[in-house]
């Protein structure tokens, strides 16, 4: 049985300086309970990989508490400066590094990390800053950028339901980055709404096979709203 009693207990072994993937897209499928536990844990010097770190995003609490060394993300700094995040202030102060990645490239780099593909050629981003410092090559006459796989020490993900083997099903737009991240980290911790006996999920409906999931913790959903 992979179940842990609390989100805090499920983070056992997560230490300073680790790279941490966090699934979720704004409010959908966000592992808010695990991120809050990581804030409580006080682990520092983290490289976080997640789609967004905006106003209202729980990840911004990691910035607030100075736990982040680097952020790899697609939504970082709002075009409007009317309200700012802790992350933005940290970044302006030079306290945290930022690697901004096109969203599809981020998803594909994570999938590649889980699929044993060290690098791939992407049509996205030539002639932009996303290609800066990267190798480019023509395929079919169009420029492409060499993108490298992303893996992490830990992935924090959220699913709707697990069985005791860790097989996961999601809900609505809750799959997003949770699915590829489950394949790309050495330690995968999933918070779920409920855990059902093995065999009660239809094998046709399982989205993440249980072999990808190391730890489970039951937590109610925390509906967080993004503010941009």
């Amino acid at each position: 049985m992979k179940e842990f009693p609390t989100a805090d207990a499920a983070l056992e072994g997560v230490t300073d300086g680790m790279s941490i993937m966090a699934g979720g897209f704004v409010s959908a499928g966000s592992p808010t309970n695990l991120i809050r536990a990581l804030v409580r844990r006080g682990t520092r010097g983290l490289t976080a990989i997640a789609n967004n770190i905006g106003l209202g995003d729980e990840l911004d609490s990691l910035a607030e508490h100075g736990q982040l060394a680097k952020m790899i993300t697609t939504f970082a700094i709002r075009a409007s400066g009317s309200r700012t995040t802790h992350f933005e202030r940290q970044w302006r102060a030079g306290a945290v590094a930022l690697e901004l990645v096109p969203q599809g490239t981020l998803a594909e780099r994570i999938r590649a990390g889980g699929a044993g593909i060290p690098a791939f050629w992407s049509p996205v981003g030539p002639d932009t800053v996303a290609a800066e410092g990267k190798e480019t090559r023509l395929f079919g006459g169009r420029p492409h950028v060499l993108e490298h796989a992303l893996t992490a020490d830990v992935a924090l993900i959220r699913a709707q339901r697990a069985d005791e083997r860790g097989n996961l099903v999601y809900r609505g737009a809750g799959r997003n980055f949770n699915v590829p991240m489950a394949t790309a980290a050495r330690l995968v911790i999933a918070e779920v709404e409920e855990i059902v006996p093995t065999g009660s999920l239809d094998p046709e409906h399982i989205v993440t096979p249980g072999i990808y999931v190391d730890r489970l913790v039951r937590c109610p959903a925390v509906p967080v709203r993004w503010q941009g």
Partner: protein
Amino acid sequence: MPLTRELIAMRAARELAPGMVVNLGIGLPTLVASYAPEGVLFQAENGILGYGGVLEDDALFDPDMINAGGQPVATVPGASFFSSDASFAMIRGGHIDVAILGGLQVSVTGDLANWMVPARGGGSIGGAMDLATGARRLIVLMEHVTKTGEGRILPECTYPLTGKGCVNLIVTDLAVLEVTAAGLALREIAPDITVAEVLRATSAPLLVPAQVPLMEL
């Protein structure tokens, strides 16, 4: 009077036809879902194919049923859900007929800048670069000039690019413009707007036909 945001969205929706697969960017483009003809299938890059307009009733907010802008939406019959890697395989692989994105600047050759204001720095790319690359047709919606009156349609973008030569059509509060091999062509003007006003607001050369039709909304 320049068009309201709703009217810009309404005009953009006329570019859509039943059966098309369409991705809407965050902000202004999101409004298009409410005006699109029946049978258009909207794709949200966060993993939904087949959703409708933004739900106005906040009590209906479901954290797992949101569009790419984080707004609550509902699915239509025949919808499906998938992960971000599958979603961008769909986008990058050329399976999206039309993407409608917001813009900060567009060049006369169809370069788009929409993810960062240099004075602010940092930026948020989101799915814009992937959509600019993968969608078969790219429509940009934006106000013709900035709040401080600076042109957004330029000989060259001065902001960091989202993509080069990717824009096909621009719908603004003043006009509809098409990127053609010969240059940027004025296709329609908003009601109550003159060609001269459009030219004044455009910081780049335009191809202007003898007769410019009014936008139909």
